[in-house]
């Protein structure tokens, strides 16, 4: 009796085998990601920590990265979410072409992205004369960093919100339209909440991409400590001249990213659980 019960409960031998394989795959993948990260934490020399944290290059890089990535994400949000809504709810000629163009920044190698930004916005670039007349120079400033980060990272938010809005139940939106004449109200009270999960994920991806941005920033904004030297660039510069500083900075980058990501994930989980 016992034997028969065991067999039918657990499934056949091949099922168990597949489960084991799956477990091994998950473990392998996890170790693949976790070991290098743990490895870098092990390189900290505790007595050096406070000294490094007082290093102005390190502090500047942290502040600059947080400020620029936050700003870039904010701008990306304002630009990409409405655009995603527009593209998800309207059909028009040439929609496929527009779609592809807006996706291009993701496909460009970062250094190339930097070059095209130079060609467009530098004093001798396409829009140079306009900016010159206004007395504005962009390369070499913190604004240039924000522009570079926004350029390479915003497509993530565009894709995510477009998909989120496309998946909206049309009948729910139509119900709202029957009851309220204000497009803005329908967008903020019904459409956006419906797509919120996708939009939030997209925002996180965008921010993460902005935080990690290196090549385009280096080319377009330059490597000016305190002004355009973001954490990724500083880590790169420090890693071979001041390895300890570079490692510290890399660890701080990981800790900051991890903290923000986990807070958002936990809040997401909580709100989902409540709604169920």
């Amino acid at each position, binding site marked *: 009796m016992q034997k028969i019960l065991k067999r039918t409960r657990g499934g056949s031998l091949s099922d168990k085998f597949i489960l084991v394989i799956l477990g091994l795959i998950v473990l392998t993948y996890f170790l693949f990601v976790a070991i290098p990260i743990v490895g870098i934490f092990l390189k900290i020399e505790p007595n050096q920590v406070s000294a490094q944290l007082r290093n102005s290059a390190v502090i500047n890089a942290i502040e600059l990265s*947080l*400020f620029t990535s*936050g*700003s870039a994400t904010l701008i990306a949000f304002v630009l990409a979410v409405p655009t995603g809504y527009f593209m998800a709810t309207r059909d028009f000629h040439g929609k496929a072409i527009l779609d592809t163009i807006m996706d291009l920044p993701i496909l460009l190698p970062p250094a190339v992205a930097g070059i095209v930004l*130079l060609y467009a916005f530098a004093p001798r670039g396409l829009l140079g004369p306009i900016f010159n007349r206004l007395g504005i120079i962009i390369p070499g400033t913190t604004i240039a960093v924000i522009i570079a980060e926004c350029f390479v990272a915003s497509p993530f938010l565009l894709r995510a919100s477009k998909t989120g809005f496309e998946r909206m139940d049309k009948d729910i939106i139509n119900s709202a339209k029957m009851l309220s004449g204000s497009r803005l109200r329908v967008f903020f009270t019904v459409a956006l909440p419906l797509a919120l999960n996708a939009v939030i994920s997209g925002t996180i991806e965008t921010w993460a991409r902005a935080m990690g941005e290196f090549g385009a920033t280096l080319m377009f904004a330059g490597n000016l400590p*305190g002004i355009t030297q973001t954490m990724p660039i500083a880590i790169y*510069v420090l890693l071979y001249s001041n390895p300890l500083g570079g490692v510290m900075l890399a660890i701080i980058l990981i800790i900051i990213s991890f903290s923000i990501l986990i807070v958002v994930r936990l*809040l997401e989980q909580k709100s989902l659980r*409540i709604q169920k």
Partner: protein
Amino acid sequence: MNKKILAVILVVIVVAAVVLGLLAYNGTFTSKSKPTLIVFAASSLTYVIANMTQSFENANNCIIRVNAASSSTLETQITQGSPCDVFMSANIKWNKALNSSGLLYQNYYTNFTKNSLCIILATGNPKNITSLADLAKPGVRIVVADPSVPVGEYANDTIYNIAATWGNSTSPEYVTSGAYVNYPTKFYANVVSYETDDENIVGDVSLNVGTADAGIVFVSDWAYASLTHETVQFLPIPSSVNTFKSYGICVPSEATQKSLAETFMNYWLSAQGQALLTEFGFGS
């Protein structure tokens, strides 16, 4: 507690980051009382410049900002109009290119120092490399730079110089043991990585994790590495086969601090500047 609150919290986090940043950067955005000199310098010059920045700033009541990157990147940035007062390049050809485009102040550029190559060795010299011929032996792991980058281009030139001078039987300096025949082939067979930056090469070799046994870098790279790490061993490359490249300095035509830029440029051409350069491995 629902999605609305989640969204509000996110917005608060982002806005907080932005506001904190704005507060921190208040200094950077407001106009400074002191003039700012923007220097675009090749990465290899970073440390020698850092050594004189403070005293120059004090002596001339200014602030120096250094944008360090590869010389080609810097040239692209200047061509497109990125603000720059002084351009110090690891290869005078980039200064020349700017001049041909008419982008230099008074059409002036000049050589201010040289750099040559040497071999750096991993700590303890595990493969016991004592001559350039040893680099061609099988099993030796070498790191060089990609030929698109100056130090890689020069390394390539040097390798072929060696082949032409010591490995060519018709050459008066032919090494009769034949150790240098087909040198490029044997050498490049041992290359395990083509880096895009000199510092990577120093790193690969000196990080001592078994990645590389030897690398070809500028003498200045070795000099700086030995100042910051434990002394890194090196093997000199004889001048008969070594590649010397000129470093160029110039002031772009759109520099906003032209007189300050000229002062900076003259410092490097002066005896004091030249001495500093020698100290950091440049010149010879």
